């Protein structure tokens, strides 16, 4: 089928598209096309220009030069709404539906049916229900968007696109916040849409998804085309080659020798799950992973240990000192560091400089007066040590790519010389190259005697990094997986509480 698709006239094509932003040439004469009934994956490291290209195709950015063609006809897309009217829909990476609207209100946003000044609510609800059912969603069109789960909201965006007769769907990291079953449901929908002749552009960091879905895979590197792979030649290593231009096989891990207990949590009850208790210990030089479904209380444990959320009950002891839970400052002083889940709102102050971010947690240790020499030293050593790619240390942290931002968060805490390092989804939104570097660094830190406790939704990562994996379900530890019997199946079984591997079937 894919062979037939590729010979067709592309529905949507970009030719020699160039786009510059202050300080960067985001796209450098990029060519791209997609045909009806074809799923094209777009891969590349963060900052390679994927999102910019998609925004050009969806009418959010105008190219500085080059052209965009629909069905071979060159078009000027003035706005996302205009693009949608021409059949191109962008499903955003960060879902930004107005959540005060009803479901049908969101589906018809910008194209409301009306007679004169009056909205035809009932008609819109009827049509909305039709599209929702086609996507297998049993949602009341009158429900508020705010009452939907993330996965449902994503489907809602797709329904909105289909309602507008979209022939091209652009999906930017659609699975980054979905649960496993929601991901599977999404894949079914994508396959079904492909059969109905919809062209799909799929952007993701998860290469296994590309292997599973894509007819063709296009690589971008530093704003340029870096090659493409056809269905038969798509595999993990080939894609990594496209993205980074070099082979990055995962580092072989040395066996670790855990030392004394660095972190001990006893009888912890969090606000989210006040009836579940958590007990865990992490030793110096040990890496412990926390797996589990979204909303299973994984992050809450890290937040409670760090003191960001007040704990309902329980005791946290770090290197022999009991923490009263007074807040992050106390935890940090005791030697705990946290890389939070949401880097942009919790990890960094995006509008402050790289230097100011790097020195923030440790500045007060140098006394009351601002020690600028110290700041510069901390920044210089973190930038060199973690290979943070920035022009200068006074560049705004928000202008760096996701991977480099994450390195800043790591760097600022390493400057605090922690005993216990807590990481919440440390590689979310981080490209392959920086990912491998972060893994390597964590391994090295564990080797130096740090106790590392990390939450991750990517089982591959958990299994590769952790000595032991604690699997969470409903706020409690459902089981521990360690040693040679570690496997993705085992973790999923514990996480879903199922007894067979096919527990995902009970989704609807």
């Amino acid at each position, binding site marked *: 089928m894919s062979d037939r698709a590729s010979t067709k006239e592309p529905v949507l094509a970009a030719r020699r598209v*160039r786009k*510059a*932003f*202050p*300080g960067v*040439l985001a796209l450098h004469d990029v060519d791209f096309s997609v045909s009806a009934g074809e799923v094209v994956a777009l891969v590349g490291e963060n900052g390679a220009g994927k999102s910019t290209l998609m925004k050009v195709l969806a009418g959010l950015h105008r190219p*500085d030069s080059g052209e965009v063609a629909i069905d071979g006809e060159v078009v000027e897309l003035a706005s996302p709404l205009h693009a949608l009217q021409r059949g191109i829909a962008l499903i955003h990476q960060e879902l930004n539906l107005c959540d005060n609207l009803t479901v049908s209100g969101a589906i018809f946003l910008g194209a409301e049916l009306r007679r004169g000044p009056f909205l035809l609510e009932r008609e819109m609800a009827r049509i909305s229900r039709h599209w929702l059912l086609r996507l297998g969603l049993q949602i009341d069109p009158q429900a508020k968007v705010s009452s939907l789960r993330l996965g449902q909201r994503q489907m809602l965006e797709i329904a909105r696109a289909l309602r507008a007769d979209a022939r091209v769907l652009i999906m930017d990291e659609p699975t980054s916040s979905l649960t496993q079953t929601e991901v599977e449901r999404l894949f079914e929908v994508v396959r079904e849409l492909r059969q109905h002749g919809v062209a799909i552009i799929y952007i993701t960091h998860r290469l296994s998804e590309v292997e599973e879905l894509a007819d063709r895979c296009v690589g971008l590197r530093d704003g340029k085309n870096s090659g493409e792979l056809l269905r038969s030649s798509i595999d993990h290593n080939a894609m990594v080659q496209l993205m980074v231009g070099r082979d990055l096989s995962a580092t072989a891990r040395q066996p670790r020798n855990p030392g004394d207990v660095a972190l001990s949590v006893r009888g912890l009850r969090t606000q989210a799950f006040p009836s579940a208790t958590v007990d865990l210990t992490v030793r110096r030089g040990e890496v412990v992973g926390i797996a589990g479904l979204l909303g299973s209380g994984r992050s809450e444990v890290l937040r409670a240990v*760090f003191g*960001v959320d007040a704990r309902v009950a329980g005791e946290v002891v770090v290197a022999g000192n009991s923490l009263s839970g007074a*807040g*992050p*400052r106390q*935890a*940090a*002083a005791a030697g705990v560091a*946290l890389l*939070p889940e949401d880097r942009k*709102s*919790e*990890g*960094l*102050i*995006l*509008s*402050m400089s790289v230097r*100011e971010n790097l020195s*923030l*947690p440790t*500045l*007060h240790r*140098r*006394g*009351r*007066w*601002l020690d600028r020499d110290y700041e510069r030293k901390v920044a210089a050593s973190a930038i060199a040590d973690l290979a943070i790619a920035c022009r200068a240390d006074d560049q705004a942290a928000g202008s760096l790519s996701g991977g480099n931002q994450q390195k800043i968060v790591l760097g*600022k805490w390493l400057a605090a010389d922690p005993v216990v390092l807590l990481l919440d989804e440390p590689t979310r939104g981080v490209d392959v190259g920086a990912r491998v570097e972060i893994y390597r660094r964590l391994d090295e830190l564990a080797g130096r005697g740090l106790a590392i406790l990390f939450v991750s939704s990517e089982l591959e990562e958990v299994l590769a990094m952790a000595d032991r994996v604690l699997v969470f379900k409903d706020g409690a530890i459902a089981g521990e997986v360690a040693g040679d019997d570690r496997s993705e199946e085992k973790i999923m079984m514990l996480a879903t509480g199922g007894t067979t591997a096919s527990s995902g079937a009970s989704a609807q």
Partner: protein
Amino acid sequence: MKKLLGIAGLLLVIAMITTVLSYDEGSGNYTFLSAYNLENLLRRLGMFGVLSIAAAFVIVTGGIDLSIGSVVCVAGCVLPWLLGTCGVPAWLALPLVLLLCATIGLWHGFLVVGLRLQPFVVTLCGLLLYRGLMRNFTGDQTMGFGDADSGLRWLATGKIPITDGFGLPVPLCVLIVVAIVTGVLWQRTVWGRHLFALGRNEEAARFAGVPTGRLTVLAYVACSLLAGLGGCLFVLDVNSAQASSFGSFYELYAIAGAVLGGVALRGGEGFVIGVVLGAALMQLLSNTINLVADSNQLEFAVVGAVILMGAAFDELLQRWLRFRGARRRS
């Protein structure tokens, strides 16, 4: 920093225009440049500048304080009462008033940080509450010093002679001291760095171990304390206070001065020198209108229009610079 140069430039241009327009044919003098006018202008700048720095403390945290004018009223009514009715000595009365105002700030901080109420709501209610209480407390009577000010009035009306005719008004010196202390706090201490960090992103600052709650409370305390100081200067200047109108709308002057001086309402941005320049621009405009027009009826309208034009011009300029930068690079 470029923004500050812009404000300074604007200040200079308006001052020159005012000078030219204030030419008095009868005497052949420029009224604007007269020692009397300049002293008066600088005295007002001193007092309003302190209020703008007060407002900036809270705006930098991403909050807002609408109660500044009412705190001015509290200081303006309580100081004469302490000195006159109670016969408290001056060296004690002034600290007591400042302590009272700081307590108001502490209360705001508690409501904002402890109860997580919106700063807008807390201080809007404060605006109504303190003025209402003062009107009741004074029975709407004018509070004056009589001859009980015991030399304190020097703080507001005194001047430090520079030349024969011209002296530096003491309130301006107060402003200079307040500005220097604030500038050192903001730019040279860890405290200041933390304050600005929390203004830009409170969550991330908290996650980095910054004691955001304590800092926010302190910012409100500093704000009300300075508003109280300003209130004392104002009442010492005019010698009496009427609770129903004293300090009314001053919060808006204070906020406008701070914002005009480059303190972003979203928090985390600003320089003290900018705040002083912004306050100066406000006072200069009001002075211009008084000198040039026959009445000050248009004062609010002109101030509003100038700020609006300034904001629009700044936005357009920024956009043009970004556009030009992008084009040059491509």
